[in-house]
């Protein structure tokens, strides 16, 4: 338990880290307890009540279809966090496996995989998203596939580099000489030593992932209506900006809060675990 509290205490000692942690917990709380925090159905339309400003009845007002914006923002948070956490986790697993194989495997396989990572990385995100949506149609799955394809090469490259550095280390050579299998060496001796920086990097990537989800939904390439998403709320706000600014505010503020929260938290985590990079 003390092991767990030590980094948290370090984070809380940094003002930006504490703010980041607070914002992230705030967003997670809103998403998890959305059903308790509001009784409004986020998809229930009522055109007669459109474009209402904030009130005790509708805390953030209503959109062009009279839907409660507070409910849509909270439920949109669920989508954003779901996409961010699930697709980042999937990316991490795939990136780790591919990076370990590339770093520990034969040279020709390393070269081939580096070529693959670079090819994947060279696709502009928006073009990749458009191509995938053309093939799969707009959906949450399409968003997650885009995120995975965009982030895996970066993770895999980091793991590969660290694996190459470690595979000639003395304790790995010792394990090899004792007859340990490659799988055991990777799992027991290399993975625990390379995964730390990656977790920090992944936490810093979460705002990027949320941005991709919101961007795709803004363009109509993400989650399908009526499912609320911060990107689609922002699009509604953009479309109706001259009628009311509240929709754009409702869509934009959560993205800003979440992005700042995860960025501050990620940077503080990095500073805590790798002080050499502090302030950069």
């Amino acid at each position, binding site marked *: 338990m003390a092991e767990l509290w030590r980094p948290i205490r370090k984070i809380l000692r940094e003002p930006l880290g504490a703010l980041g942690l607070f914002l992230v917990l705030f967003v997670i709380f809103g998403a998890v307890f959305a059903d308790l925090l509001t009784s409004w159905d986020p998809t229930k339309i009522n*055109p007669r009540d459109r474009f209402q400003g904030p009130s005790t009845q509708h805390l953030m007002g209503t959109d062009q279809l009279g839907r409660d914006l507070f409910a849509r923002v909270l439920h949109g948070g669920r989508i954003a966090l779901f996409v961010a956490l699930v697709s980042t986790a999937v990316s991490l697993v795939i990136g780790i496996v591919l990076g370990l194989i590339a770093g520990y495997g034969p040279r020709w396989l390393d070269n081939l995989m580096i070529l693959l990572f670079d090819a994947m990385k060279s696709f502009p995100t928006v073009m990749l998203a458009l191509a995938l949506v053309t093939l799969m149609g*707009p959906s949450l799955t399409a968003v997650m596939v885009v995120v995975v394809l965009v982030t895996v090469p970066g993770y895999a490259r980091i793991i590969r580099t660290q694996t190459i550095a470690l595979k000639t280390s003395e304790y790995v050579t010792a394990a090899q000489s004792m007859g340990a299998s490659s799988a055991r060496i990777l799992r027991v001796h290399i993975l625990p030593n390379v995964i730390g920086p990656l977790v920090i990097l992944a936490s810093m990537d979460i705002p990027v992932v949320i941005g991709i989800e919101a961007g795709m939904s803004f363009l109509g390439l993400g989650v*399908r209506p009526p499912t609320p998403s911060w990107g689609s709320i922002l699009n509604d706000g*953009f479309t109706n900006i001259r009628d009311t600014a509240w929709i754009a505010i409702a869509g934009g503020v959560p993205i800003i809060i979440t992005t700042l929260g995860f960025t501050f938290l990620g940077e503080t985590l990095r500073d805590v675990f790798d002080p050499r990079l502090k302030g950069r």
Partner: protein
Amino acid sequence: MSSIFKGDVSRRSVLAGAGALGAASLAFPHMAVSADGSVLTIRSYSDLQVLDPAFWLALPEADIMRSIYAPLVSNQQGDEWNWRPIAVENIEQLDDLTIAFKLRDNIGFTDGFGQMTADDVKFSIERIADPANESPYAGDWSALKEVEVKDNLSGLIHLKNKFVPLWTTTLPTPASCIVSRKAVEEIGGKIGSEPVAQSGQYILTEWVPKQKTVLKRNPDWAYEPGGYEEIHILPIEDPSTAELGFEAGDLDYTWTSVSSLPRLKENPPAGSVVEEKPSLAYVWLGMNHDNEALKDVRIRRAIQHAIDRQTVVDAAYFGAAAVGNGIIAPGLPGSRDSVTYDYDPDKARELLAEAGAEGMTVTLDILNQSERLTAAQVIQANLADVGITCEIKQNDSGTFWTLGSKDGDYFMNLQLVLSRFSMNPDPSWATVWFTPEQVGVWNWERFNNEEYKALHEEGLVESDPAKRDEIYKKMQGLMDESGCYVFLTHEVVGLIHKDTVNPGLKPNGEPLLPLFKPA
């Protein structure tokens, strides 16, 4: 800042720099280059795809074609539906079956294809009418017998039978745009997005897909020149985006979204003029008769009863448009006051239960525009209320306008589709798209009714307004009965232009590009 000059660029300094740039752009919002007085910049709601008078897809292509391929006649601007000669010195109807024309003497085709002749007129009209060419616009010339060439510039258009809409919806449309026989035959018979042998008041000089089309005054056009040296047409699908573009000074003229009209009329941007025009267009929810899930008429009728048309129209247009009851707008023969189905969710549930289709899922394809999306979401909610799950699929214009085409691979999967067709001032120009010949062309509902076809043909030769009214009302009744249609609205046309622009507009607000002039 010093760290940047030293080449020590951190993530935070980049963010700070980006923030400063953003603040600067807010402080100086009008740094963009303003349009030159000799250039008119307008918005079209879709990019061009086909510049062939026999195969065009959307209204913006028709606007361009009328400018670059001289038509025999075109619409006159103003509040009355009239026509004016363009490529002809004179044209007159000698009797019910004969039209005589004489071309102007010195209209040339670009790219060295010589002078426009009566033989080019014969070629241009007959290629649209020829069933072998499968032109979607064959109906415009369905009464054509032949075009007889009298001499180099003169000829006679012979009809098989009387054709009432000839002067309203055939001649003033791209159906009378003249192309060069030699040029079209050289490229294999069909024009794509690159025009050949242009002859109009303007010539298309540049097309950057999805960005810009540039028309320049045709230096060889010897008659009344277009009002502007150049016309730049920017394809912007969403009208709300176009309104922002107009307010930012990037556009001189655009259609607005209908839902923005009340606000714009109340508070027009400085230096602009907002106009509202009666629309002939029609918007409807279509259902694919041949799709496996919708084959049972009870399911289609259930969907008709499930949709609250008033709420759909109010929500999408913020009260600026009225509910429509068919494909023929008020003021034309055949316009109706009501449809034969009412909003009755209980009846819808009953019909779905009878058909064993409770809990079914359908897809609804729409064009990626805010008004359509809003309408689609109300439809989605209405359908959810009777137990139908509806997935909305948003499409860009290039994809959307080919969804129901028999040449594609999606037409049988198409289930519900929210469509809008523009219209010319004769009811036959609305009914023609739903005839059996148009199945898989523009008839995406695949509504196939022989009685409807017979009535359409009867309407083309009937000149008594009362009888035509009866015919076209009956036709829309057949459409109701099929269950394939939920008629929503005729909209209104909202447009906004700078007060330095005098737009050339048809009575329904559609643009006549060569008639735009500086005010």
